[in-house]
């Protein structure tokens, strides 16, 4: 190590004196040594000793004004650089900016820090508004220590991808030691890449402060090839506590995203392939029956259904082919469940199979019907809404600690009876003042002692879970209308709770930064998933029950292995708090929606973002995949339900690899009058249910 230190001193001396030729030669030499040791190629710059040296070097002129001065120089230089390199260099600006600010605060120059922050804040507002808002409040060195966001920033390095052919060159020609120096020089003279540009600039202008920060805080990942375009910048946006390398390592782990071995769908397909043509014919009739069944509220839709029948026939041809495709895709991997899953009673199984057979096939040409449940007179008290799998039950969690469940089958009768009551007004309205509450239009579940933030129906609709600010989760029976269990374990409000697709197990997420796995028969959690740096806001099960995904206020989505409790994927790319998650039915993809209205689709296997779906202007409260996975529905605070085409989204990526442009693949926007959409649920027959509370427009 001593030897290395000497080398580095020499290097910095050369830099200082501007002997770039000699310096580069030296650098190349060092890099070669390093890479042969299997460490990072250019972490000469990251060496703490070196940065210390720089800092002592610049101590003599340690004025707060220097930060401002140097940063503004760097900024103007970056902005005036060639377009080709600008993007990459701009990425460097933001970490430099926040670290300058934090350095100033840490040294106690609060006033200067403030002015510095306000001077340059605009540059980064578009990308990092929320972080800036957080940092703005940091006004004393003690805050830096206290605030976890700042803390994690100070104690970790920012990863920035920056292109340079040099790395690759060295790597491939490890064995040709003798030519390396010459070649690297040669190379550099040809390719003036961003990284080199930056270094050269910093050396020339003697911006010791900036150089110090860059050395200390930024970890350059030098990548070969041409400078990348804007779309590739997702990773630097989120500054996470753990090292990027660690995240990368995590993402190397294998994820078995396949469907369960013995799922019902699987069985259906086996039988289905044999009698496919037969089934298709039967489908039409059944679809119509199905249609009639599902429209208990509205009677006079006969004309529509006839029209639909014709349409269905037309679509059927395409549907058949697409189904064959789907079969080939879904036959890919099968996995065994790690959990002991409950056994379904045969009659339930039969009804599910029946549903699956009668499923309407959705595609970009065949959009779903959407039934909307509007909560009225909520007085701003509705916190969440949840719809059971078949759409017959709707639950609302209220800020007055109550959970109310409406039975849709009874709702129609209720309307009739209340209409009759209106006629003879002389009789007192028993259904409203009834003391036992039996005649209310809903079933009231009382037990929580804080706002109810989430509710989840069991797959069969016989249980409902609710999570509350009182840190508990409660299990209710919809048959008995009573509370069965209270699960205590979290230390802070429980934001989300979700039943396993097979029932029995459930997952919860909380302000205490953990997600937990529970089973219905135990009052202690089975697993605790810790790792998020901020609140865990939402949780969803993977379709094969072996994984759960969690979205957090730290702007990451993580995938956890249920059996081991390990984090197996970190998805970085969102720019604000994650509010909603959905898993595709084929288990391959996941969608996540955030506070800004961005929806991202992730490939679980690779951990990469398949495509960002832009379109919503406000929080995406809910996401849902259609049952065969061809459509994604999203509900948002901007009072719309949007339908996205998933199949082309993924296909485009496969064929064109990187088109670079974020194409809108929004199929349809369905605006509501003024009802933010809280919850979406596709039934097994692919009818889409949506729920939301009517909000007054004021």
């Amino acid at each position, binding site marked *: 190590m001593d030897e290395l230190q000497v080398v580095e001193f020499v290097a910095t001396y050369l830099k200082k004196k501007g002997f770039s030729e000699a310096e580069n030669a030296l650098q190349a030499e060092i890099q070669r040594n390093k890479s042969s040791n299997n460490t990072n190629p250019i972490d000469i710059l990251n060496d703490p000793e070196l940065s210390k040296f720089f800092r002592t070097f610049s101590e003599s002129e340690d004025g707060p004004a220097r930060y401002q001065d140097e940063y503004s120089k760097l900024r103007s230089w970056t902005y005036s650089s060639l377009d080709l390199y600008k993007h990459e260099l701009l990425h460097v600006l933001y970490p430099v900016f926040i670290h300058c600010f934090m350095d100033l605060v840490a040294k106690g120059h609060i006033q200067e820090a403030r002015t510095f922050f306000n001077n340059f804040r605009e540059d980064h507002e578009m990308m990092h508004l929320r972080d800036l808002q957080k940092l703005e409040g940091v006004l*004393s060195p003690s805050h830096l220590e206290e605030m976890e966001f700042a803390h994690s920033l100070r104690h970790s390095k920012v990863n920035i991808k920056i292109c340079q052919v040099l790395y690759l060159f060295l790597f491939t020609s490890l064995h040709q030691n003798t030519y390396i120096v010459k070649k690297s020089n040669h190379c550099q003279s040809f390719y003036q890449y961003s990284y080199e540009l930056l270094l050269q600039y910093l050396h020339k202008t003697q911006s010791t402060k900036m150089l110090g920060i860059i050395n200390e805080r930024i970890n350059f990942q030098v990548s070969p090839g041409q400078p990348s375009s804007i779309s590739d910048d997702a990773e630097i946006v989120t500054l996470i506590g753990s090292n990027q390398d660690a995240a990368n390592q995590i993402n190397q782990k294998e994820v078995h995203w396949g469907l369960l071995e013995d799922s019902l769908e699987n069985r259906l397909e086996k039988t289905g392939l044999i009698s496919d043509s037969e089934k298709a014919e039967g489908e039409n009739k059944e679809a119509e029956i199905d249609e009639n069944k599902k429209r208990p509220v509205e009677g006079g839709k006969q004309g529509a259904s006839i029209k639909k029948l014709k349409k269905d026939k037309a679509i059927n041809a395409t549907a058949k082919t697409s189904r064959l495709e789907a079969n080939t895709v879904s036959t890919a991997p099968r996995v065994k469940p790690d959990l002991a899953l409950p056994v379904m009673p045969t009659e339930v199984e039969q009804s599910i199979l029946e549903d699956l057979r009668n499923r309407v096939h959705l595609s970009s040409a065949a959009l779903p019907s959407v039934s909307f449940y509007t909560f009225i007179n909520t007085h*701003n008290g509705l*916190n969440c809404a949840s719809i059971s799998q078949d759409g017959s039950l709707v639950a*609302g969690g209220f*800020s007055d600690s109550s959970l109310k469940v409406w039975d*849709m089958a009874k709702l129609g009768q209720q309307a009739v009876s209340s209409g009759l009551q209106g006629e003879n007004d002389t009789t007192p309205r028993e259904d409203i003042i009834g003391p036992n509450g039996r005649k209310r239009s809903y079933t009231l579940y009382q037990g929580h002692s804080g706002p109810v933030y989430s509710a989840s129906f069991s797959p069969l609709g016989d249980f409902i879970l609710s999570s509350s600010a009182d840190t508990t989760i409660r299990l209710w029976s919809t048959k008995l209308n009573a509370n069965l269990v209270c699960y205590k374990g979290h230390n802070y409000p429980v934001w989300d709770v979700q039943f396993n697709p097979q029932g029995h197990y459930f997952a919860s997420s909380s302000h205490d930064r953990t997600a937990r796995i529970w089973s219905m028969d135990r009052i202690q959690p089975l697993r605790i998933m810790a790792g998020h740096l901020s609140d865990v*806001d939402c949780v969803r099960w993977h379709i094969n029950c072996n994984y759960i995904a969690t979205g957090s206020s730290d702007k990451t989505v993580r995938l956890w292995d249920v059996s081991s409790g390990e984090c197996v994927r970190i998805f970085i790319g969102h720019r604000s708090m994650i509010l909603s998650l959905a898993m595709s039915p084929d288990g391959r993809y996941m969608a996540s929606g955030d506070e800004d209205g961005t929806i991202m689709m992730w490939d679980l296997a690779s951990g990469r973002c398949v495509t960002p779906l832009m379109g919503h202007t406000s929080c995406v*409260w809910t996401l849902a995949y259609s049952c065969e996975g061809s459509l994604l529905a999203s509900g948002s605070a901007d009072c719309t339900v949007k339908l996205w085409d998933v199949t082309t989204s993924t296909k485009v990526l496969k064929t064109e690899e990187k088109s670079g442009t974020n194409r809108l693949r929004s*199929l349809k*926007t369905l605006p509501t009058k003024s009802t933010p959409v809280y919850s979406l649920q596709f039934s097994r027959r692919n009818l889409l249910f949506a729920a939301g509370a009517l909000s007054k427009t004021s």
Partner: protein
Amino acid sequence: MSIVPKETIEVIAQSIGVYNLSSDVALALAPDVEYRVREIMQEAIKCMRHAHRTVLTANDVDSALNLRNVEPIYGFASGDSLRFKRASGLKDLYYIDDKDVELRNVIETPLPKAPLDTSVAVHWLAIEGVQPAIPENAPVDAVSDGRRSEYREDGISVDIRLPVKHVLSKELQLYFDKIRELTVSRSNSTVFKQALLSLAMDSGLHPLVPYFTYFISEEVVTRSLKNFSLLFALMRVARSLLRNPHIHIEPYLHQMMPSVITCLVSKRLGNRFSDNHWDLRNFVADLIASICTRFGHVYQNLQSRVTRTLLHAFLDPTKSLSQHYGAIQGLAALGPSVVHLLILPNLELYLKFLEPEMLLEKQKNEMKRHEAWRVYGALQCAAGLCVYDRLKTVLLRPPKQSRWESNRKGMIVFPSKRKASMDNLMLQPPVKKMATLGPMGVMPVNSMAVNMQGPSGGFSTPVEGPRAGVSMLRHLQNEKMLRREVSNQALKTSTVLAQAWKEDAEGGHLLASLYELFGESMFSFTRKSELYFFL
């Protein structure tokens, strides 16, 4: 340094009883206060998000304080968002309006109604991706205009149309304002006349048409039925616009017509006796007639609607006479056939109604009597014009023809002592021939026919021929018997002729009956020479 000034800290300190807080301490506390407040807000926002809201409420802040194990602030709990008021005189100081409430008032007021219980309503947001047009759904147009994206199978998708933005140039705005000002305040000036001319001629005014139509209808309907000169000015503006050949005013007609018709059949136009609203009515009647002729082919039902409205006003005895006058004028302006169809059948009845109003003995109110006479005049005029038109087709031939007619007259008068049947027989051959040969345009049979054929030619002549003959027959003061005989015979000749005969028979009858009703004054509508036939 911090957005919380140290004065705030001092004030807070005083409010909790710390009076000797040194400024250093306040200065040090200020940044920390800011940091803590931000921290609480961050948590509050989380609570807000988890309650699926986008507006922060006091409850959220309470929950956030709760999360941090801080005692919540009491007294602000409310489901609604708070309304802040700006402190007067200070730029960025806000407070919550919290009025003092008399306790007694609170006790005495009756208990408020229990709020409605939460319920769930179901509707179809979409059926197979299409939103049904039901009241529960948002109006489709509002949204689809701006961001309609059409999807195509090949993936090269997205056709986003932006809403068409209507931009009015500064100059046009100025122009509009100027015209408006002129119309409202200086409609007697010569400048206004120039303006009218410009409105009728200028080519670039199309963007202003909706504004003008709105202006006119707004002014007429809402404000200025009392202001006669303004009404007149408005109607002039309307006429100028309608005359402008460069403007496509059709889409806005429906907006303009009500106000124009109002000016015709309104009960009162202007509020002074000196206001000559008769003039205005006449003017508007012409205007309506011109609209109907110009746009009748575009709007099929335009004229029928106008006439229906007017007829309604005319036949309603409860309406004032000035309204009747307007209706009659309007109908008259629409042409003699309208008068013939709609006014004349009702004429006799109406005159009976009108008569007492006109007589000095029965109607003492001079104003009313004057009005009645006006109406009488209008009726007379309309009926007269109608008759004139009827006869015009018969008699108002170019000079040559009238000469022929006089010849003819002479010829017919000569054997007047003969029997009508003879007459008829005499006339029949040429008529027949004319009818059959007409289309050929060659009439060598007799000189009369040639004469007649001269200028016009074409298909219309065979109709005119018999008409001329027959009307002359009739005009020989023949008895009704004869007329009927003639017409009967004529009916047999051909259908073309039948129509002509019938009309003419009516025409004759018309004049006669009109003569009965109006007396001699009716004859002023016919030329001397023609009159000669009748008498």
